[in-house]
């Protein structure tokens, strides 16, 4: 097996130089997500302004897959409407569930297609989803608050 399919350059880059990895002072909501099987954790701040995600910032501790995935997620969803963000999230979920059969839609997922290789390793899918699930939780909570 070629490990480079899993550890693509873009993943290692984001791991070493993560984006938006500093919790913002202002936020609509803060969530903390933890993978109990390994202890990886992410704290995520989400702010919405006039129907757009105006800021996602995060802090975390974990493996290259979980940290890079959270970093890429934060860059992808920044500035998007919650509906567009949901489409991207759904597309990423679908990729993770593909067991290695899908390549991912580059138009929607951009750099996040680099995680296609992760879907072949069942034990690592949770790593890749950690930050995304934190965003999903945060967005649902913001939505519930605004109702």
């Amino acid at each position, binding site marked *: 097996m070629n490990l480079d399919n899993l550890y693509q350059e873009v993943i290692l880059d984001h791991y070493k130089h993560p984006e938006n990895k500093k919790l913002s002072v202002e936020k609509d909501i803060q969530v903390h997500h933890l993978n109990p099987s390994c202890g990886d954790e992410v704290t995520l701040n989400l702010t919405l302004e006039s129907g757009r995600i105006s800021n996602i910032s995060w802090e975390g501790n974990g*493996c290259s897959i979980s940290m890079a995935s959270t970093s890429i997620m934060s860059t992808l969803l920044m500035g998007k409407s919650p509906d567009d963000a949901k489409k991207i999230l759904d597309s990423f979920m679908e990729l993770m569930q593909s067991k290695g059969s899908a390549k991912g839609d580059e138009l929607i997922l951009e750099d996040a297609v680099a995680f296609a290789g992760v879907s072949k*390793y069942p034990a690592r899918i949770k*790593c890749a989803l950690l930050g995304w699930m934190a965003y999903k939780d945060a967005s649902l909570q913001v939505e519930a608050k605004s109702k």
Partner: protein
Amino acid sequence: MSLDVGLIRKDFPILGRTVRDGKRLIYLDNGATSQKPQQVLDAEMNFYLMHNAAAHRGAHQLAEEATEAFENARATVARFLGAADEEIVITKSATESLNLLAYSIGNAPSNNRFHIAPGDRIVVTEMEHHANLIPWQELAKRTGAELVWLSIDSEGRLDLSKLDTVINGKTRVVSLTHQSNVLGTINPLDKIAARAHQVGSVVILDACQSAPHMRINVKELGIDFLTFSGHKALGPTGVGVLWGKSDLLEELPPFLFGGSMIDTVTMLDSTWAPAPRKFEAGVPNMAQAVGLQAGLKYLEKVGMEKIHAHELNLTQQFIQGLSKIEGIEIFGPTTMESRGGVVSFAVPDIHPHDLGQFLDNQGIAVRTGHHCAWPLNKALGVQSTTRASFYLYNEAHEIDSLLDGIQQAQEYFGRSR
């Protein structure tokens, strides 16, 4: 005389398989579960092929044979631990054994020596596996007792400087691991057991990481109860052992209720069979017990002293190799004194998951994570570690491969800056 590892390996079919596209399997996750020799698989299958019936019930021939097979297995476990047959309770797992003790103690009425009252104390250590921590947390909550623990020092050994204040006159239970599943530390039992008994507490030993790897004689350890799991000792999953001193087992109330564990039953009340039967409700795990028996016989035949010495050789080789790699941090004792064949470590700038994945790609199975000892990880100041754990079938060249793999991982993950 050292072990003939080549000969031993022939008995373990799984060690001949390859993983991840043709890589030879190097199995170094024995702290989690051991592989099984053909003798264990045959024994378990033979029970089902020839003797299967419900033990302790019925008068037909198969029922007699099943009963005999199960009781023979108990006798082998007893011999393995230097105990009497009636002191051995066959459980489904070590986790069940510890829960059995916690629930049984919690069931003890006020006139029973095990009774726990609000303000009493339960003592554990900071290095416990969750299975020897959470049952006591819950018992403390149910009874109003206080849960207190012995801390670890910088070398990963128990700090006994506060022993007399931690184990005080209120202490009813002291439950600790014999060997840490993360650090490899073997705990000094003499002082702890002496202090516990001085204040009238029972001492419970989690021997999951020790009993499969070294000679144990319960009479020499000065403890009251001991548990270990079958699947870490070459046996099948689904079987655990609980040893208790016979007078204590007699006084301890039962935990699971149902068939087999009774003496008499009416619509409103029941009385219990003598120990160990009162702790073995339901049709027992006969095939698994028979499999465990074959596993323990295998270990005895090889020799527990030899196995322990072999594992320490591998451990020393690994720790010496690790100490030559820059920046590696080892959690736990680095000398061979009072330690077993479990080594946890950290490689700078590589998360254990990524290291584990890289090694897996080379066919090397190690454990990564918090090893079900979350509070210990917090005490060590780490989120997770990588752990290699050895057994009788591991070879020196496998340790070399692991050391090479760690260095290659450093190159691999250092590749982009």
